[in-house]
């Protein structure tokens, strides 16, 4: 992509950035928003911004992958909890009632992880809210006592999911603006 030529704005027929069609009286390209009649500084800033998007895209995708991995990790974590509870309480008459929440959570996080590649924003927001509610329930059950390891674990999980949400917003914006798949 190049910026600027010496041609008079009145005779511009294609955008200098994306080569899309433009009219002679357009201020911005309707396809990429390149400032056709802007100053050299504005045009340079636009090109820098677009290049930054291309550079940052892999970083955002990496954050999105980390959030996806967090959802699968939580599914595995609750599955492990279910297995531990099963062996601890297998003689209990209420085994199904005790086990059911862990199984439901495992399935929910697995589903969220599976769909996160197609609909990352929805799955990361849902996973984050579900995890927060679970933690609030756990802390309430423990009469609002918690320990340092729990706090660190929660901060890491929430951090990955929040970063995943931000990254998925950026990825969607970059893909829309640059006509990427």
């Amino acid at each position, binding site marked *: 992509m190049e910026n600027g030529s010496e041609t008079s704005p009145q005779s511009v027929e294609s955008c200098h950035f994306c080569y899309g069609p433009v009219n002679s009286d357009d201020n911005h390209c*309707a396809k*990429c928003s390149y400032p056709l009649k802007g100053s050299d500084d504005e045009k340079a800033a636009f090109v820098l911004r677009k290049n930054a998007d291309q550079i940052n895209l892999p970083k955002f995708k990496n954050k999105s992958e980390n959030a996806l991995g967090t959802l699968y990790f939580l599914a595995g974590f609750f599955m492990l909890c279910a297995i531990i509870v099963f062996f601890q309480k297998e003689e209990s008459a209420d085994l199904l009632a005790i086990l059911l929440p862990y199984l439901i959570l495992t399935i929910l996080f697995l589903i969220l992880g599976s769909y996160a590649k197609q609909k990352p*924003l929805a799955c990361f927001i849902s996973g984050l809210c579900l995890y927060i509610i679970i933690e609030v329930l756990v802390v309430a059950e423990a009469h609002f006592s918690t320990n340092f390891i729990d706090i660190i674990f929660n901060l890491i999980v929430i951090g990955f999911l929040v970063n995943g949400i931000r990254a998925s917003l950026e990825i969607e914006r970059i893909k829309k603006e640059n006509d990427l798949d």
Partner: protein
Amino acid sequence: MSENTPKDVEITTCSQCGGEVRLNSKFCNYCGSRLSANSDDFGKSWTRLKEAALFYGIDIVACCLASFVGIFKTLGWSLFFDILMAISAILFFAYNWSENKHLLKWKSFSFLKLSGYAAIAICCSVIVHYSVGWLNVVIFNKDENYFELLRGNLAAEVFLIFFTAVMPALFEELGYRGYLLQNLLRIADKDQAIYITSFLFAIIHMSFISLFWLIPFALFLGYTRVKENTLWYGIFIHFFFNLTACVFQILAAH
């Protein structure tokens, strides 16, 4: 519009500068702003998500305090938290008034359609009542009746219907299908926005066993709200659904 624009090109208006632009453009050719339906930049989208998180956070705190903290497990505190969440829904809806006010109109009103939706709501409520009741007995060996909380109070039936059928129908629709869904439609596509709203609505009820009907019910309410472009059908669906549940509770208690 430019003299170079063919006459058969569809025209729309830029929401930022008011200039006429071609419908299939991604950006305004006058001011350079993005033109798509969810056209907010990252900064605005992130602000909207934080507002939505504040709204949902208030509901989470209220529900958790009412459900799990001993001193708040009384009728008076339950009513207090109900009113608190209703006020929260009103305030957040009013905060984005210019974007949300059209949802309070009912241009597509049809008595036949309303009757159809009410019938669907009542049938679904009957099915849910018997299936959840069966699951509660089989898995948890208990059969909950919320009417028992109000028994002994004057006009207990009126209280139950008002706080279980009327208030949730009005204020949960206002908050979730009104404020939250409209907010998310500016950030994500229609399907994602409806899905997120439905999932958040379902899990705030804090019942794993009920997720199997809460999520489809919320999806139905979400798609109805978007299809009809009004809150009122959803309010009546929600009302008839909860009213049917109230009737079952009252009949069982008597």
